[in-house]
C-alpha cells in the first residue's frame, strides 16, 4: 500500500493501513505456515499434486466457514459481551430455511420432501433473514437475563431447534397451503441447482477449469470446489470488513460499554436494549449465512450436524485467536482447523506411513498391564489406535491451557480501539508537548497544585 504523507487525513489513513498491514502480515505468516506444513505432509504421504491442492482447498473451505462464524461470535461475545452458546442453532436455521425455500415444489426421486422452489439468491436471503429473526425471537426474552442464564438459554434454544428439526412433526408440514418439510431425523437432500451456477456458467470459468486442469490435473468438479473455496474466502473478507467497521465506530463503542456496565451505559443515554438486539440479530444472521455456506453445496444435511459441539468448536477458535480481536478470530479459526480439527488425522497418517504400529490391545486394561512389566509397546499401540479419541482430549486440554497461559488468546490482548478514528493522538495538535506528559514530571492524581 502507498505510504506518502502529506495532509492529515492521509496521515491517518496510512497509519490505519500500517496497523492493518501488521495484522495482515501476522495472518499471512500463520497461514503460509499452515499451508506449507500441509503441503509437506501431503508430499510425505505421497499424495499426488491434485490431492495436495485438494487438501489445501478443503482446509481453506473449513477455515473460511469457521472464520465467518467465529467473527460473528466475536461480534456477540468479544464486543458486546453476549455469551451466545447457541451458535449451532442459528446456523441450522439459516441452512434449513434456505434448503426448504430452494427445494423444488414437486419432489422427485430421492428428494423426499417438497420445498417452495424459490430461486437460490432468494432462498439464501430467506435463510439469512430467518436466522436473524430467530435471533430476534431469542433476544427479546433472553437479553434481560444475566449473562450466564442468557448463555444457557441460547444453548437451550439451539437444542430446541435441533430437536425440533428432528421431530416427526416437522418432517413434513404445510404452511398456507404450501408443502414443506425438514425431513426429521432423516434430514434433507439437496436437489436444487448448485448455488454457484452463476459463476460456473461464466465464460471465464471454463478457462479456469482448463487452467486448473493444466496446473493440478483437476477435473471440472474439483475446479468448482476450488472456486467455491475462493468465493468463501472473499465472503470471509467481507465479514471481516463488516465487523471491523462495526466495531470501530460509535456503534461499536456502545457495544463495548454494554459489555462493561450496561446500567451505566443506560444512564448515559444509550438505549442498550436496542443496541443489543441489533447486534445480536446481526450476528445471528451472519451465523445463519455461514451455516448456509457451510453446507449448501453438500448432498444433504441432517440435524445431527448441529449438535452443541459445533458451537464449542467455534468457541475454541475464538479463544485461540482472542476474543475482541477480529484478526484473532480469523487466525484462531485457521489454527483450530489446521491443528486441532484436521491435524491429528494427518499426524496419525504420517506415523502410519513411517512405522507399522501393529495390533493394539483392545482394552485399556490390556494396554496398561504390560506397563507394569516395563513394556510400553502395547500402551503406545493402544494410544495410537485411539488417536481420534485423543484428538478431543487434545482440544479440551488446549482450551484449558489457553485459559491458563494466554486467556486473552493470541491477539486478544491488543484491544482494538472502539472509535472510528485512532485515539492515540490528540487531534489538531496544538501544544508543543506530546499528548502524554512524561511519567515522572506529571501530576500524579491530577490534584496537586
Amino acid at each position, binding site marked *: 500500500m502507498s505510504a506518502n504523507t502529506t495532509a492529515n487525513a492521509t496521515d491517518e489513513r496510512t497509519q490505519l493501513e500500517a496497523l492493518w498491514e501488521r495484522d495482515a502480515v501476522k495472518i499471512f505468516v500463520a497461514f503460509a505456515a499452515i499451508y506449507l506444513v500441509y503441503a509437506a505432509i501431503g508430499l510425505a504421504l505421497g499424495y499426488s499434486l491434485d490431492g495436495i491442492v485438494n487438501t489445501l482447498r478443503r482446509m481453506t473451505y473449513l477455515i473460511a466457514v469457521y472464520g465467518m462464524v467465529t467473527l460473528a461470535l466475536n461480534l456477540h461475545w468479544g464486543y458486546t459481551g453476549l455469551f451466545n452458546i447457541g451458535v449451532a442453532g442459528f446456523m441450522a436455521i439459516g441452512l434449513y430455511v434456505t434448503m426448504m425455500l430452494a427445494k423444488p415444489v414437486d419432489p422427485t426421486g430421492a428428494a423426499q420432501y417438497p420445498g417452495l422452489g424459490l430461486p437460490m439468491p432468494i432462498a439464501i436471503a430467506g435463510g439469512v433473514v430467518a436466522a436473524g429473526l430467530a435471533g430476534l425471537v431469542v433476544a427479546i426474552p433472553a437479553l434481560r437475563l444475566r449473562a450466564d442464564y442468557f448463555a444457557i438459554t441460547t444453548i437451550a434454544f439451539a437444542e430446541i431447534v435441533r430437536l425440533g428439526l428432528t421431530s416427526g412433526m416437522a418432517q413434513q408440514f404445510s404452511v398456507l397451503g404450501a408443502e414443506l418439510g425438514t425431513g426429521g431425523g432423516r434430514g434433507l437432500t439437496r436437489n436444487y441447482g448448485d448455488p454457484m451456477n452463476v459463476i460456473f456458467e461464466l465464460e471465464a470459468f471454463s478457462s479456469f477449469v482448463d487452467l486448473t486442469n493444466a496446473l493440478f490435473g483437476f477435473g471440472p468438479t474439483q475446479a468448482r470446489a476450488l472456486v467455491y473455496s475462493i468465493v468463501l474466502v472473499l465472503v470471509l473478507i467481507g465479514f471481516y470488513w*463488516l465487523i471491523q*467497521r*462495526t466495531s470501530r*465506530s*460509535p*456503534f*461499536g*463503542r*456502545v457495544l*463495548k*460499554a454494554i*459489555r*462493561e*456496565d450496561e*446500567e*451505566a*451505559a*443506560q*444512564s*448515559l*443515554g*444509550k*438505549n*442498550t436494549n436496542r*443496541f443489543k438486539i*441489533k447486534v445480536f440479530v*446481526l450476528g445471528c444472521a451472519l451465523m445463519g449465512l455461514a451455516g448456509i455456506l457451510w453446507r449448501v453445496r453438500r448432498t444433504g444435511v441432517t440435524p445431527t450436524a448441529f449438535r452443541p459441539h459445533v458451537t464449542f468448536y467455534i468457541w475454541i477458535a475464538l479463544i485461540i485467536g482472542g476474543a475482541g480481536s477480529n484478526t484473532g478470530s480469523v487466525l484462531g479459526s485457521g489454527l483450530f482447523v489446521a491443528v486441532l480439527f484436521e491435524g491429528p488425522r494427518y499426524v496419525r497418517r504420517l506415523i502410519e506411513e513411517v512405522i507399522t504400529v501393529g495390533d493394539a490391545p483392545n482394552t485399556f486394561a490390556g494396554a496398561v498391564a504390560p506397563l507394569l512389566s516395563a513394556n510400553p509397546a502395547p500402551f503406545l499401540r493402544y494410544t495410537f489406535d485411539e488417536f481420534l479419541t485423543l484428538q478431543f482430549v487434545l482440544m479440551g486440554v488446549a482450551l484449558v491451557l489457553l485459559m491458563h497461559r494466554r486467556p486473552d488468546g493470541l491477539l486478544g490482548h491488543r*484491544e482494538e*480501539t*472502539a*472509535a*472510528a*478514528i485512532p*485515539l*492515540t493522538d*490528540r*487531534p*489538531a495538535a496544538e501544544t508543543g508537548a506530546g*499528548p*502524554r*506528559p512524561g511519567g515522572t514530571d*506529571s*501530576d*500524579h*492524581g*491530577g*490534584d*496537586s*497544585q
Partner: protein
Amino acid sequence: MSDTTAEPTGSLTSESPDRPTDDVELAVDGLVKRFGGITAVDGATFEVESGSMTGLIGPNGAGKSTTFNCITGIHEPDAGTVTFQGEDITGIRPYQCAEYGLVRTFQIAREMANMTVLENLMLPAKRQRGEALWRSVLPVTRREVVREERELLERVWDSLEFFEIQHLAEEKAGTLSGGQRKLLELARALMTDPEMLLLDEPFAGVNPTLEKKLLEHVHDLREEGYTFLIVEHDMDLIMENCERVIVMHQGSVLAEGAPGAITSNERVIEAYLGGEV
C-alpha cells in the same frame, strides 16, 4: 406504571408559598418506592429550580439514592410522579432520562473498566450519528462519522484538561484510583451535554484540594445554566455551595429551604446533624 395519575403538566404550582414556582427544572411529587417490607422512599415531594444548585441531604438510608434511582428510571416508583422541565417522565427508561438531559452519577463510580479513559469519554455524547449501524458501515456515510468523531475527540480532550486527567487518557479506566474514577464519572456525565445533573456523593473519597477545584468547575458550569442536585454528607460543602437544601428522612422530605434555615431547624438537627452544628 404509577398508581396515581399524573397531574396535568400545567398545574405544577405548589401550595407552599415560599417555594419557587416558575422555572422548575425537576419536580418530584409523592414518590414512593418499596422493597419488600421496606419503604425506602415514602411520599417524597420536592422541586428543583432551574439553574440552581440544590443539596439533598439526609441520614444514611433516608432514601436519597433510591430517589435518584426512581427519578432516572433505574427503579420504577410504586407511586408518585417525576416531572422534568414540565414533562412527566415518571417511570421512563434510564436512557430516555438521559436523552431528556437529566443525567446522574453513581454513588459508587461505575466506570467502563476495560475501556480507556478516552473511550469512556467518547461514549456519552448524544446523537452520535455513528451509533446507527449502517452509517458506521457504509463508506459514504462513514466519512461523516469520522468527521464527527474528530470533533468529539476534541471535546473529550477539553474535558480531560478541565478535570486534569489528561495523563490518564489512555489508561484503562479500571486501573484508576477511587478518586480518579469519581472524576471520570463526573466528566463522563458532562459529556452527555446534560441540562441537569444528579450527583450522588460526587466528592466522597475525593481529596479536599481536588474537591475544591471541582467545586469551582461545578460553579462555572452552573453559570452556564446547568442545574445541579447533589447528594452529599459534607455539610460544609452543602452550606457553602448550595442555595437550597432538601433534607430527607425516612423516605420523605423533612425540611427544605436555605442552608442557614436548615441548619437551625431542630428536626434536622435531631435527625441528621447530630446536634453539634
